[in-house]
């Protein structure tokens, strides 16, 4: 998809973006962990203290949901303007535009991997580790594929329809409520469960919970389906971006 000579640029750029982002704040790298902790605390406060739903394993389910959801939603919302917003750059030099969303995916994945490590330590210490944790790397790889596909799609389409950036924000909040970030699969009535699990993020989040908290192995068939569909999307959308590589600069200045 991307020429080999651009991979070294990509590597350096991701490294520099991480450094550059961190250097803007006093607490720099620390924020990458503090932000999700704050977000989890807010949810926990609302759901356990205010709504009285804090019993049992709720806090673990919540943290798992929030952490993996944030990985997805951060990438999607940061990718929306990755091509359109790069106007000053892409009107000056040619390079394959798929690099731009890919930078976002890699930067956010790196940041989120630190959070995931914190999460795993927290659950491991407080809840315990089981052998099903071995399936975690596969889940992570599949979510990476999902994230990448979503990132490419929004990045590729916004230059054509700039109004999408508002829709993506709304879409993400809607999707968050439909992905079971704050609730478990068993709250959904039996007849809607299959429909609910068609949403790849809802599916992944419930599988993460199964693997990390309920000592059960993932449902391989649905994971496989997600990987195939999203892999295909990545292939198609990168072709689309490549086809429009020299059109995007014009869309950016129109």
């Amino acid at each position: 998809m991307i020429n080999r000579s651009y991979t070294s640029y990509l590597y350096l750029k991701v490294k520099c973006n991480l450094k550059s982002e961190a250097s803007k704040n006093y607490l720099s790298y620390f924020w990458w962990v503090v932000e999700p902790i704050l977000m989890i605390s807010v949810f926990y406060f609302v759901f356990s203290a205010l709504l009285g739903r804090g019993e049992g394993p709720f806090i673990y389910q919540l943290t798992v949901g929030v952490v993996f959801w944030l990985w997805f939603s951060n990438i999607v919302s940061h990718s929306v303007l990755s091509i359109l917003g790069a106007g000053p750059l892409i009107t000056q030099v040619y390079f394959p535009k798929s690099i731009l969303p890919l930078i976002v995916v890699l930067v956010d994945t790196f940041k989120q991997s630190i959070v995931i490590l914190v999460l795993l330590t927290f659950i491991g210490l407080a809840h315990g580790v089981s052998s099903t944790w071995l399936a975690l790397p596969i889940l992570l790889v599949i979510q990476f594929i999902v994230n990448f596909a979503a990132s490419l799609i929004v990045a590729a389409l916004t230059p054509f329809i700039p109004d999408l950036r508002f829709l993506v924000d709304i879409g993400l909040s809607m999707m968050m409520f439909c992905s079971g970030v704050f609730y478990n699969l068993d709250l959904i009535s039996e007849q809607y469960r299959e429909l609910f699990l068609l949403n790849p993020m809802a599916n992944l989040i419930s599988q993460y919970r199964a693997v990390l908290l309920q000592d059960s192995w993932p449902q391989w068939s649905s994971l496989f389906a997600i990987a195939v569909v999203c892999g295909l999307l990545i292939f198609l959308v990168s072709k689309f971006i490549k086809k429009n590589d020299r059109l995007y600069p014009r869309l950016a200045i129109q």
Partner: protein
Amino acid sequence: MPSPELTSPNVEPLNICEKGKPLLTLKNIAVRYRQSRNIFKKRIYTAIKDVSFDVYAGESLGIIGRNGAGKSTLLRIMGGVISPDAGKFTSHNATVALLALQAGFDLELDGKVNAILSGMLLGFSYQQVNQKLDSIIDFAELGEFINQPIKTYSTGMVTRLAFSVAHLLEPDVLLVDEVLAVGDAEFREKSLNAMREKLLSDQTIVLVSHDGATIKSLCNRAVWIENGITRMAGHPDEVVDAYETYICQYPPV
């Protein structure tokens, strides 16, 4: 005084610079932009209607035309940044780079890293840029500042760094968009000299400007673009004189 007619376009490109073979060929190029995104009214703006010329190896070609004549769009075509709506642009295996000031600069990062990233975006490998890094830093006269984030630089310093990166890399064809007047007076002189050196060497340059004097002093062939079409091509003195006569007769609206 001969008064050029608006309807007498497309003079066959005059090849004064016989020494080289064509590196870039533009044939009947047209570029149209959509002016507004309003879905109820579609307004098309034609930046370039019909432009043809070649860029020959070793020459320094000046493209002259008033503001809005489509010069920057032409540079984007030649740099391979956009593709034309009609016509054919061919690059005969030449590496082309726009002397793009501050391409991909990140204010939070230091000058060195920015120079490398910018150079890589302009199409060079990490090693190639790294080899030239010392001379880039030297030329930009940044001293200790090179290790500081460029947000601490003055505007002049940023421009100096940007010019140095773009200038020290040597593509087959260098595209320049009236950026010669960069930085303070002293650096401007230095960058002009650097450009003149390039012109005397084998470097192929395409310089875009609306200023006749610049073209006359720096180029050995000129193409005049008016209203999106090639009006004239030939020796800079003749082309610039015709252009200036025309400008006086038909001042910009």
